[in-house]
C-alpha cells in the first residue's frame, strides 16, 4: 500500500484525537518555554544564512575556525616516525620485557609468546629550535618542526582498525555516532552556502596494498540530521560527478525545477515533519550551488607554480594525497569548516621495510606543504591541522627476525603520536612521553577523548555542554570523558 494511504488507514478516531491534542499541547508548551519557536523566521536562522541550530555556540571566543584532519588510516608506526627510542636498537632481537606484555591485549595477528624487540628501521635526527627528534623518513615534516605541537602520549581503547578509527572520529567504537565534523557543522553552522561545511577527501593508497576501507560512518552524522554528514569527494578522477547539466537543461530551468521540487518537499515536510525531508531540500540546494562552485574549486590553474611545487610531484594527480592537501586548503579558503582527509596504507604488519618509506614519501611533503602554505597565507592563524592515525604500532616485531623483508609491527593502542599545528596550539613543542621502548605512556597521557575535548575547546566549544538528546539520553562527542589539554594551548 502507498505509505500515505497506509498512514490514513492506521489513523483511528482515537489516535487522531490523542495525536492532535498532544501536538497542540506540546506546541503551546514549547512556545511558552521559547517564545521564538513559532516565529517562522527566527533571528538565528537569519544570522547565519543557514541556521545555527544552537544559538549558544560557540561557548567562548574560538581560537580555530576551521580544521583539516589528515587522518592516517592504518596506524603509522610512532617508533619509526616521531617517538625516538634508541633503546629499541640496543635491544633488537631480545624478548620484550614480560612486565610490559603482561595483561596487554593485542590484535592476535602476532604471536604473544615470541615478541622480540625490533629496532627502529628509520634513523632520527634533531630539528627546529627545540631539537625535536623526527624520523629521517619525514624530511619535510622535520623541516616544519617549529610549527608542530607533537603529542607523543596518545592512547586509545581499541586495538583494531575500524573500531579504533570510529572511536577516534566519532567518540565511540561502534558505528552510529556523529563524527567530529558533523558535531561541528551541526553546532557552528556553515560559513558559506557554496560548499558543504564538512568535506571528506579520500586519497588513493599509492600501492593499494593494505585493503583498508573507508567506511561511510567515519564521517556519518549518526543521530544528527543527515545534512550534517560529511560530503565525500571521490578519491579518483573527478572529485564530484554530474556537475554539468545535461544538454537541453539550462541553468534557469534547473532552478525552476528545483524550486518546484522544493515546494513539493515543503508540503510533505508540513505533513510529516521528518527532518530527513529538510535534509533533502538542503542537499538539492547545495548540489545546485556546487555546480558552480566546484568547477572553480577544482581548477588548480590559478595556483602559481611555486605553490604547486611545494606540494610535490603528485599534486596534479587527482585522488593523490598531495592533490587532496591542496584541495583542503582551497576548500577552507572558500568557507568549508571541517576537512577530513583520509589516507590509508600505514598498516605494515609484514612489509615495514618496504611500505613505511613509500607511505612517508607519499604524505610527508604534502602535509608539510599544507602547513607552510596555510602559514604564508595567514590561514594557520585560525585553522587547525591535525595529523595522526587511530593507534600506534608495537615496539616488538611481528614476523620472523631472520626474514627482514617481511618485518612488521602489530597494532598498538597503548601509545602513539599525533601532531597538531596552527590555531590555538603551542608551536614547536612536544607533549607527553612514553617509556624507553615507546610501549606505554609514562607522562601526560592523552586519551582520544582528551584529544577530542581539546579540539572542541579550540573551536570555542565546551565539550561537556555540547550535547544532543537522542533516545532519552544527552549524547556528547566525548561520552562522559575527556579533559582539555590546557598545557598545549597557546
Amino acid at each position, binding site marked *: 500500500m502507498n505509505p500515505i494511504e497506509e498512514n490514513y488507514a492506521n489513523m483511528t478516531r482515537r489516535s487522531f484525537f490523542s495525536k492532535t491534542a498532544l501536538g497542540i499541547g506540546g506546541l503551546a508548551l514549547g512556545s511558552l518555554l521559547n517564545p521564538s519557536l513559532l516565529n517562522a523566521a527566527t*533571528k538565528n536562522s*537569519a*544570522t*547565519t*544564512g543557514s541556521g545555527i541550530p544552537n544559538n*549558544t555556540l*560557540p*561557548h*567562548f*571566543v*574560538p581560537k580555530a*575556525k576551521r580544521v583539516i584532519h589528515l587522518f592516517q588510516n592504518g596506524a603509522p608506526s610512532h617508533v619509526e616516525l616521531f617517538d625516538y627510542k634508541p633503546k629499541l636498537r640496543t635491544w633488537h632481537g631480545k624478548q620484550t620485557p614480560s612486565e610490559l606484555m603482561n595483561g596487554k591485549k593485542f590484535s592476535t595477528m602476532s604471536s604473544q609468546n615470541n615478541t622480540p624487540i625490533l629496532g627502529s628501521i628509520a634513523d632520527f635526527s634533531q630539528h627546529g629550535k627545540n631539537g625535536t627528534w623526527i624520523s629521517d623518513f619525514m624530511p619535510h615534516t622535520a623541516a616544519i618542526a617549529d610549527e608542530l605541537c607533537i603529542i607523543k602520549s596518545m592512547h586509545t581503547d581499541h586495538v583494531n582498525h575500524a573500531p579504533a578509527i570510529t572511536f577516534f572520529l566519532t567518540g565511540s567504537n561502534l558505528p552510529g555516532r556523529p563524527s567530529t565534523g558533523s558535531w561541528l557543522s551541526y553546532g557552528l553552522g556553515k*560559513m*558559506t552556502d*557554496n560548499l558543504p561545511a564538512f568535506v571528506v577527501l579520500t586519497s588513493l593508497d599509492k600501492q593499494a596494498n593494505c585493503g583498508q576501507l573507508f567506511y561511510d560512518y567515519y564521517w556519518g552524522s549518526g543521530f544528527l540530521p543527515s545534512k550534517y554528514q560529511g560530503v565525500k569527494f571521490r578519491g579518483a578522477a573527478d572529485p564530484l560527478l554530474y556537475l554539468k547539466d545535461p544538454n537541453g537543461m539550462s541553468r534557469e530551468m534547473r532552478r525552476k525545477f528545483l524550486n518546484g521540487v522544493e515546494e513539493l518537499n515543503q508540503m510533505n515536510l508540513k505533513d510529516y515533519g521528518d527532518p530527513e525531508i529538510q535534509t533533502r531540500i538542503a542537499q538539492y540546494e547545495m548540489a545546485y550551488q556546487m555546480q*558552480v*562552485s566546484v568547477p*572553480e574549486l577544482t581548477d588548480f590553474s590559478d595556483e602559481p607554480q611555486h605553490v604547486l611545487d611545494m606540494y610535490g610531484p603528485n599534486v596534479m594527480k587527482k585522488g593523490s594525497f598531495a592533490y587532496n592537501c591542496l584541495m583542503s586548503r582551497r576548500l577552507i*579558503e*572558500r*568557507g568549508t569548516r571541517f576537512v577530513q582527509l583520509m589516507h590509508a596504507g600505514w598498516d605494515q604488519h609484514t612489509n615495514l621495510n618496504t611500505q613505511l618509506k613509500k607511505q612517508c614519501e607519499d604524505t610527508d611533503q604534502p602535509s608539510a606543504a599544507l602547513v607552510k602554505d596555510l602559514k*604564508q*597565507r*595567514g590561514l594557520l*592563524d585560525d585553522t587547525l591541522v591535525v595529523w595522526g592515525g587511530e593507534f600506534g604500532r608495537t615496539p616488538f616485531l611481528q614476523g620472523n627476525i631472520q626474514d627482514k623483508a617481511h618485518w612488521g609491527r602489530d597494532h598498538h593502542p597503548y601509545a602513539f603520536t599525533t601532531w597538531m599545528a596552527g590555531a590555538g596550539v603551542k608551536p614547536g613543542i612536544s607533549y607527553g612521553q612514553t617509556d624507553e621502548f615507546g610501549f606505554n605512556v609514562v607522562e601526560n597521557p592523552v586519551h582520544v577523548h582528551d584529544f577530542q575535548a581539546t579540539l572542541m575547546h579550540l573551536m*570555542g566549544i565546551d565539550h561537556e555542554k555540547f550535547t544532543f538528546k537522542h533516545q532519552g539520553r544527552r549524547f556528547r562527542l566525548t561520552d562522559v570523558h575527556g579533559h582539555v589539554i590546557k598545557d598545549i594551548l597557546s
Partner: protein
Amino acid sequence: MDSITQFLGRFHILILHLPIGILMLVAISMLLIKIQRTKFANHLKPTLPFLLFSGTISAVFASVLGYLLSLNGGYTESALDLHFWSAIVLSIIAALATFLSYKKKNIFHKFSHVLAVLLLILLTLTGHAGGNLTHGDTYLFEHGPDFVKKAVGMELELAPPKSLDEAQFYGHIIKPILRTSCVSCHSKSKREGDLDMSTYASLMKGGTKLAIQPNDITTSEIYKRITLPHDNKKFMPTEGKKPLSDEQIKLMAIWINSGAQQETTVTELNLSTEEHILLEKATHFSTHKVLISENIDVTPLTNNGFYVNILPSGYGLDITHYPKVGNKLNKDILESLLPFKNQIVWLKLSRNKIDNRVIPILAEFTELKKLSIDGTEITDITALKNLTNLEFLNIYNTPITNENQLISIKDNNPKLTHIVK
C-alpha cells in the same frame, strides 16, 4: 544481629509516613471541631480516639525503627539529635492526647486545639529534621527563589560576571575552588575539624582554628595547610584528593592578603599586571570590553552575503565575505557593514575583488582586531593606521609593495604584532 537491625531499621522510611498522615489528619480534625462546631464536625468527633490511638502506635513504631536505623551510623550526630528527640516528644504528646481522649473527655475537648497545634509543630519539625538527614540540609531550598534562600540563610548563587573585572573575588573565583576541593569534607553536615567552608560566613568563623585571617596568609590555617609538603599528615586536601594547583594557591593568597572580603570585585582590588594575567589564565571570565548584546540583529549583513559569527560574551562580530561566482563584493555592500563598525572585531575579505576604494570604509572600523585583505587588489593601506586595536593584518598576495606603509602602520598600532605579507 547487626544485619537484622539494619533490615528492620530501613522499614523506618516506610512506616514513618503513617504517623505523619494519621496525626496530621487527626490534628486537623481536632481544629475543625474546635472552630466550626457544625454538624459535619460532630461526625468527626467519635473518630478522634481511634485515630489518635493509631497515630500514637505508628509513631512509637516508627521511632523504634528509626532508632534501629540510626544504630548503623552514617548520620551526623547533631542533625540526628533533633530528629530523635522531637520524634520522642511527638510520641509522648500523641500518647497523652490518646489517653485524654479515652479517659478525660472534658479536659481533652477543652485543650484539643492546644494539642492539635503542638502535634502539627512537632510533626513538621520531626519530618523536616528527618528529611535533612537523608537529603542534606540544602536540599529543600537549593532551587528556591532568591528571597527564600536569603530568608533561610543560604548563600545566593552568583550569575557569571560580564567580564573578569566585574567578577567577585570570593564568589566567582575562591568559592568554586573551595567547592571542588574542600567542601566535600568541610560542609555544614560533615564539618571535619569543626570547619564548614560551604558559606562565606561559616568559612570566616573557622573551625577548631581560625581558617582565614584577613590580610595575613601566615596565620591563615587554610593557606598553611594547602602549602605544606604533600606527604605531610596535615596537608590539605587530604586522603589523596587532588592538591590545589599553583595558580589556585596564588589566588588564595591574593584574596587573603587583600582582606578576604566577600563582595569585593577584581577591579576594586587594584591588582598588579602580573596578578591580573594569573587571573586571566586561571578563570574563564572574559577580559575584554563588551561590544554587542546577545540579541543583536545582523540580518542586513547576512542578506548581503556576509557570513556572520556572533562571538560569545559580547566579544564582537566575526564577519567574512567569501568570494562567490556572480556575487561581487563592492563598495556599496561593504558600506552596509558601517552600522556595525563598533561591533566588528574580526573581518575577512580575502580574495574578493576589491581595491583602494574600500580603504576609507575599512578605516572606520576602529574596533577591528583582525583584518584579512589578502588576495585583493588593494595597494594603499596607509589609512588603516587609524585601526589602533588591530592585532592581526593579512596582506598576503596583494600588490602592496611599499614597505614604508607597513612601517607607519606598525608605528601607530603598538598592538599589531602579526602581519602576514
